[in-house]
């Protein structure tokens, strides 16, 4: 489903995202789903803030099962600025996890703990140097600063495939450690599906 404003800003919502939200609501308390959305929203606000600071044009936002994704102008900007743009979201989640830590120290509620863990997981997940994650995109931009574009691509592919394999094994061990927790398995499945779909369909 695509909605367009008069200025050309688009909102694309994948049906799988709605299905994902409904399944999460079915299996979790609404406060948990709200906190998860808050984390994802803060992540995109981080990207948007950096994009605005760098005076980039923002074309729209795409919401899929693997999260939200901003579509911004990349042509005509240095690789260093690109790396900063990709790290903006991670920085926002770092700030949010710190805020949740402060909240825990003053008011040790279980939702504060959940907010802290979720944002920390988002930071660690996005820091992975894997294709289509913020860490991967930032690393590729940084590699382009030091190597030619094709060579940077080859180095990045090697790193991305190796880290993906290790991350997959660690994730399986983690899931096994939680006795294959249903919601956690669902999250992993949808993220996996989202990344696979993004690799299949070229980005706008």
């Amino acid at each position: 489903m695509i909605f367009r404003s008069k200025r050309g800003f688009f909102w694309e919502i994948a049906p799988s995202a709605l299905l994902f939200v409904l399944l999460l609501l079915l299996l979790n308390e609404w406060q948990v789903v709200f906190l998860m959305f808050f984390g994802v929203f803060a992540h995109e606000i981080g990207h948007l803030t950096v994009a605005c600071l760098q005076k980039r044009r923002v074309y729209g936002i795409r919401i899929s099962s693997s999260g939200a994704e901003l579509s911004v102008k990349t042509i005509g900007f240095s690789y260093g600025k690109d790396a900063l743009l990709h790290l903006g979201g991670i920085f926002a989640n770092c700030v949010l996890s710190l805020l949740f830590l402060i909240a825990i120290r003053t008011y040790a509620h279980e939702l504060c703990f959940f907010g802290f863990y979720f944002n920390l997981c988002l930071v660690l997940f996005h820091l992975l140097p894997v294709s289509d994650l913020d860490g991967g995109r930032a690393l590729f931009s940084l590699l382009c600063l030091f190597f030619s574009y094709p060579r940077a691509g080859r180095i990045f592919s090697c790193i991305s495939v190796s880290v993906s394999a290790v991350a997959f094994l660690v994730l399986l061990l983690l899931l096994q450690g939680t006795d294959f927790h249903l919601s956690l398995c669902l999250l992993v499945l949808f993220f996996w599906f989202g990344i696979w779909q993004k690799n299949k369909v070229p980005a706008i």
Partner: protein
Amino acid sequence: MQKRMLWIVVFLLSLLLATGLFSHVSSEKTSLLCLSRSVTELLLENEDVRMVFGVEDGGEVML
């Protein structure tokens, strides 16, 4: 195209209905909050983690 959209909307509305009907399904085996609670209990056994979280030994935690 419109027919397909209609089916998607009907499907999602049915799911929403199912969500309301089966909300009692939410339990320790499915809720992420319960998982987070277990992780917190496990982490708070460590003194260094308790210091990071600012929880004193025997202090109150709302879990």
